[in-house]
């Protein structure tokens, strides 16, 4: 497999890491404001991940997650996922809206809509900080929420990479609220063609 992105030099990966850092940093701040609690985040990882292993980052292909998905439109299109596990989502709903989750399975329309809005706010702050930083136009579509297996959800973001190889370049960040009560992940999967645009916008020479 000669995925053109497998040749990205360490320097460029660092640039992408910084892109992830800025975006996720703003999103973490937004989350912290929403929850009124400190939120920590890990340094983003940027890597070319084999399709098989993408879902392992959030606990395996069959792990049930709540996923808020947005398509990024504009100069540098891509896919964005905000993923949280169910207990985290429940705690978040409780903290934020004092919604006490009653049923074992399923969510009410209100809960669903709240989760979607949280995803929207976080993704919006991620993207708008990126757009400011790169001076590229990037806007999210209306978010779409799914509660399903991580593998099924994430494979959606991998399709464009499927045409050129068996791995995808993703920028992922994990964040935790204070006592690890709430844990979530951000995945930004830019379309393969978007990298050159991001690099040239940041003054990184591209061949």
């Amino acid at each position: 497999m000669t995925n053109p992105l497998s040749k990205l030099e360490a320097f460029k990966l660092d640039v992408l890491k910084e892109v992830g850092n800025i975006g996720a940093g703003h999103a973490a701040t937004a989350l912290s404001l929403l929850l009124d609690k400190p939120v920590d985040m890990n340094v983003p990882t940027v890597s070319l991940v084999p399709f098989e292993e993408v879902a392992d980052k959030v606990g395996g292909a069959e792990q049930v997650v709540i996923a808020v998905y947005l398509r990024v439109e504009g100069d540098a299109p891509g896919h964005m996922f905000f993923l949280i596990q169910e207990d985290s989502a429940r705690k978040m709903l409780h903290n934020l809206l004092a919604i006490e989750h009653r049923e074992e399975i399923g969510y009410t329309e209100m809960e669903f809509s709240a989760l979607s809005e949280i995803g929207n706010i976080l993704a919006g702050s991620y993207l708008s900080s990126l757009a400011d930083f790169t001076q590229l136009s990037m806007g999210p579509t209306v978010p779409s929420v799914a509660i399903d297996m991580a593998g099924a959800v994430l494979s959606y973001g991998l399709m464009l990479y499927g045409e050129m190889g068996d791995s995808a370049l993703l920028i992922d960040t994990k964040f935790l609220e204070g006592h690890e009560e709430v844990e979530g992940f951000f995945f930004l999967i830019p379309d393969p063609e978007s990298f050159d645009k991001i690099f040239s916008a940041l003054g990184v020479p591209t061949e």
Partner: protein
Amino acid sequence: MNQDIMVKVGMADLNIALGGQVLKTTGLGSCVGLTLFDEKSKVAGMAHVMLPSSDIARESTLNIAKYADTAIPELIERMKKAGALTGRLKAKMAGGAQMFAFSSQSDTMRIGPRNVESCKAALSKFSIPLIAEDTGGNFGRTIEFSSATGILVIRSVQFGAKEI
């Protein structure tokens, strides 16, 4: 006895099983899990198809298990080597969901239904009957296919397990 031995099929991957082994693939979203079975020789095959057609491939070494139009011929070939006969093969499939709904339906967005259509077209090329399917919807599936019985078990978060 290798009953209950799991043979894992990854994403954009295919494999065969015999002697009671069970083929399994996890987290099918818009991908299609296609299974073939020769009841007489008890040879089973499974492909985890990711994209409808190899025409769009831009990779230098083609992963034939990834595309519907190339994975199915390869799976048949592998099963024939293991003792199956093309004329006896019967197909089942699951997956091809549309995980997220959007108002603007570009072609990439409806990749699930396209995968299903393309698998059906490839099957009819070999005159293999599709005897059961559980496709579409907006949910993910994990499937297990037994080479002892030819039963396909489909699990999903919302609907639990079902057999076809």
